[in-house]
């Protein structure tokens, strides 16, 4: 089944894609993370453009198949997911909604403009310390709160 015979419009597709989550931070969508860069209907196919976060991000393959699966669940199978290298992803592309979701999930979002200290996502203390420059994935560093003593992931600033 193709895009045209389902008479799909971009809005429907965008809505489906908005539900596709990042495989490593399953509370934030690929749109809110800034990975999803464009959706087009070209002829009978849906063309989805995505950019990688870090050069070596191993999740890109999973994201490509998650996009295809999400659309396939709505009987849209003529899908081309293109991995493009322009624009270059930065953490400024993460939406406000994405930052809030990250925080609620227990990951400290990247430092905002004017913000100087990394806050503990559990107790909001600013008394935190870097344990390692890399956390559970390439995009995160590992921190510890010196007040509540909980370790937490910090989504690194990347710009």
């Amino acid at each position, binding site marked *: 089944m193709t895009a045209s015979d389902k008479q799909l419009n971009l809005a429907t597709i965008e809505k489906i894609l908005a539900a596709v989550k990042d495989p490593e931070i399953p509370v934030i969508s690929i749109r809110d993370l800034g990975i999803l860069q464009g959706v087009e209907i070209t002829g009978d196919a849906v063309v989805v453009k995505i950019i990688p976060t870090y*050069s*070596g991000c191993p999740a890109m393959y999973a994201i490509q198949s998650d996009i295809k699966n999400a659309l396939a669940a709505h009987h849209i199978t003529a899908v081309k997911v293109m991995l493009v290298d322009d624009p*270059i992803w930065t953490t400024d592309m993460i939406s406000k909604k994405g930052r809030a979701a990250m925080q609620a999930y227990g990951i400290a979002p990247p430092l905002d403009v004017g913000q100087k200290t990394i806050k503990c996502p559990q107790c909001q203390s600013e008394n935190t310390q870097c344990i390692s420059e890399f956390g559970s994935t390439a995009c995160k560093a590992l921190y510890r709160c010196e007040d509540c003593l909980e370790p937490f992931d910090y989504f690194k600033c990347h710009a």
Partner: protein
Amino acid sequence: MNQTVTVSEQALYQYLLRLADSSLTMGQRLAEWCGHGPYLEEDVALTNVSLDAIGHAQMFYQQAAALTSNEKSADDLAFLRDAHEYRNPIITELPRGDFAYTTLKQYFIDAFNLYLFTGLQNSNNETLALSARKALMEVKYHLKRSEAWVERLALSTETAQLKIQKALDDLWFYTPELFEVDEDMQGLINAAVIPDYDEIKQNWRQLVEKHLNACELKLPESGWVATGGLAGEHSEHLGYLLAEMQFLPRAYPGCEW
């Protein structure tokens, strides 16, 4: 090589291989730390840097593959070339050694990459400039980490000091090869496709010597100066590295997983 490829394209092709091979061999050596890091967080850090390096290699192999009219893919370039066809400097293929050795080696290469990619951002080859901008953001972070680790090891226990000084004695004379330029590269420099390597070398030496000095490490006075990578002449270590890395795609051609 197909005859339709012009001389400058051939030079660019070889240069892209130099970049890609350097990142891939470094990434492979770092990946060997998986499960062997001094503690969990560093194990994760080493392999994350490895992933970035392999990602950089992939970008440059793809550009090289796009240039050739012989239908080689990025994977073919990574997995189906032999040691004499690899263009990396010898330092990136050296065995991983102990943590001090890996850390110092990484520091030298990170500092080099900082200036290299800073220069390449201004390349008049737009694809190359774009890749350099992406890689640079990551390299800056790698350097921050390796720089801090060199200091931490050098200014800590006697054992750590001995180990990192030994690493410096062993590695120092592998660093001049990073800045080597052949005739093809000189052509690319003249055409503003790649930056001036003399300038990279000056910046690198200034940064590195200052840091080593602050870390109370002593530069060795003399030693064998490595050379040959640009011409495909390597140490024995590269063959073993490739044997392990290339085994699967060679044993099962075209396999996917």
